[in-house]
């Protein structure tokens, strides 16, 4: 198959090329297969999907050309995300950190050697994870205590990390450590790239309330990291970490919003076609249509975040926090509605399901990842109030 990128200068043709490729490549039964898949099968499927995207140039299209990407504009990324959502194509969750956070950190702060070495690995399927949170450093991330002590041309790391998505399968880790325990807490942090195969790295999966185990806990015992793996300067890791966190704002959330749109539309169409009982309840119908109004507002807001992310001064904006607050709570309320109308059937244990909102309890429980991960909604409220509304910090 030819690279879809060849059509990039004509946006409608580019979209059509993606649409054609998706129609050809996405297995119609992929969801059904994933419902029954073991962890190993899921990971193999994710790697297959990455490889297929890579073949047509859609693995890292958003990266600069000099590092193997296509340097595509945001309009193109939006088109890709929209077509993926429309086709209900698989998401590449295994590679989220690899595709978004790692380049978002290395491009502004990495050395040329680091960029050359690590960016190239992602299109080949290297998996990255993030070692930020610790058992005692969640919302108060800057209080982290994992120690890194210089020893010749290495640092020796001891500590514990948690909530590290897909760390069980990762090749590399974006790691925050404390190098100066006597400095003010934001000033003694250093950022490293850690090879997950280093001796002393142990990963234990964390079983989640929704039945899955996507996160790992990292136990680090005398792990030796070469000094050349430091990103930015020693004790300047907090500033580098802001780039990692900021990279989350954007196309991923946009794609999530678009996927929800198609899912809810498919759900509604199916309800009409099957004469679902909830449609006969006027109040449920009103609740549902209110969700649609909020969903349209959320989709417009996600577009605004994308537009804004291309402008100067975007890092000072609290709009991403406002959007996170509104869209994650809306997701939770929509899923809650789905649980309620599913009755006892909806309480029968099931993980992924084929149909739209086919396993509403799974979706409802999974929605907490939106309200808790990436800075809890309570932290977002602080950000909105303090940075956005100018309310004093005390």
């Amino acid at each position, binding site marked *: 198959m030819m690279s879809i990128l060849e059509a990039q200068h004509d946006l409608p043709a580019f979209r059509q090329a993606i649409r054609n490729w998706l129609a050809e490549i996405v297995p119609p039964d992929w969801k059904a297969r994933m419902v029954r898949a073991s962890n190993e099968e899921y990971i193999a499927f994710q790697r297959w999907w990455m490889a297929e995207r890579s073949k047509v140039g859609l693995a890292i299209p958003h990266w600069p050309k000099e590092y193997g990407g296509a340097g595509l504009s945001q309009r193109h990324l939006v088109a890709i995300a929209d077509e993926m959502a429309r086709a209900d194509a698989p998401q590449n969750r295994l590679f989220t950190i690899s595709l978004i956070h790692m380049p978002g950190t290395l491009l502004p702060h990495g050395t040329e050697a680091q960029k050359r070495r690590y960016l190239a690995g992602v299109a080949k399927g290297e998996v990255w994870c993030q070692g930020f949170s610790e058992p005692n450093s969640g919302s108060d991330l800057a209080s982290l205590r994992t120690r890194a002590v210089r020893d010749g041309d290495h640092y020796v790391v001891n500590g514990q990390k948690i909530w590290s998505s897909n760390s069980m399968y990762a090749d590399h880790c974006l790691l925050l450590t404390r190098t100066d325990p006597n400095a003010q807490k934001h000033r003694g942090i250093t950022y490293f790239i850690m090879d997950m195969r280093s001796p002393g790295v142990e990963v234990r999966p964390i079983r989640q309330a929704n039945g899955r185990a996507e996160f790992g806990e990292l136990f680090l015992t005398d792990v030796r990291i070469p000094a050349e793996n430091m990103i930015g300067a020693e004790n300047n890791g907090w500033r580098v970490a802001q780039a990692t966190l900021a990279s989350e704002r954007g196309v991923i959330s946009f794609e999530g919003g678009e996927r929800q749109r198609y899912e809810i539309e498919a759900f509604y169409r199916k309800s009409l076609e099957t004469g679902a009982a909830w449609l006969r309840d006027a109040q449920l119908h*009103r609740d549902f249509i*209110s969700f649609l109004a909020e*969903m349209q507002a*959320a989709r417009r807001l996600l577009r605004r975040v994308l537009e804004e992310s291309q402008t100067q001064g975007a890092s000072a904006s609290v709009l991403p926090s406002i959007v996170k607050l509104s869209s994650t709570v809306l997701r939770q309320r929509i899923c809650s509605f789905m649980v309620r109308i599913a009755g006892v059937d909806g309480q029968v244990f099931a993980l992924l399901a084929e149909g739209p909102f086919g396993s509403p309890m799974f979706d409802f429980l999974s929605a907490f990842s939106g309200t808790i991960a990436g800075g809890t909604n309570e932290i977002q409220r602080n950000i909105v109030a303090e940075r956005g*509304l100018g309310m004093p910090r005390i």
Partner: protein
Amino acid sequence: MVTSVMDRANMLDQATLDALRESVAGVLAEQCGSTELHAFIDGKNGLDKGLWRQAGSLGWLGLGIPEQFGGLGMGAQGLAILHGELGRQCAPGPYIATLSAAQAIVETGGDAICQAWLPLLASGEASAAVPATLDAGSLTRSGAGVSGNVRCLGAADAAFLLAPTADDWVIVDLANAEKTVAPMWDRTRNVVDVRLKDAAPLGILPDAAATRAALTRAMCLAIAADSAGGARSITERTIAYMKTREQFGQPIAGFQALKHRAADLATKLAVADEMVGHAVQRMATDEPDADLWASLAKSEVTEASVFIATDCVQLHGGVGFTWDFDPHVFLKRARLNEVLVMANTALRDQAAAALAAITMSGRSALELE
């Protein structure tokens, strides 16, 4: 750069809209500040009349009226900005009734009626009244005349009423009609009870369904924009107050419990603005789902604004319960907005029916651009 939600060939450019907003906001901030507004509420000035004259001379009243009838032809986009800014200052006057009646006439009045009335409305020479709720009864015909009682939204001296009969909509002269002005909790707008007896219509709009739909859409957008503007304004005023009010030795704005409430209000405001924006976009490009989104904007945003204004009273503490502070003025305006046109439950029922019809026809009501 992604395609902006506003970036459409048949929509006005952002610079034009920003300039409009700035100029309307500037005039209202100068003339309709808190002091003037409270004096008006207490019957100590004629703020409503002064603003109306100025609105006429500045072209605000013709924003949605095509240029050939003396307006500026800025459609739903211009109207949403004007109503949003009027809401921000709780500006008194019959704007929602008059400008919405004008839209219904533009869309379904026919040339003669447009020629006769739109220039008068655009200049501010005449104001209009409309039924406060559109699902109430209709006027009855007796020969050439119409009779009945209508509870109207509009000024006591409105020139005419646009109201339905069983078969069509009529324009009725109000100069000699029997009128009772109801005392309202919201003193920034009037509800007038009109009793008509064999009144001769000045004009007839024959397509009842189309006129009803046009008026509903226009009122819904106007009310939603007014509510969103009002909610934003009272939130800003409340947060400013919280930064100055000290208890326990510090500004109350520093307490986390209150910060989180304020952040939630800011989030609701962002959502409300987008709901208005979405309705505007669907109306400006004349999409088949425009009615649906206008109805939902009204029902969602008016409820959000009641929630927000209620919380703003509470966040003020004791002074929030006084006549002299602003929150109650906004809360009362929000409460009237909430019940205009028709109950929000009924609007959602209509929207749900429209959604089902669009979906069953194989189309989507969820397009954004």
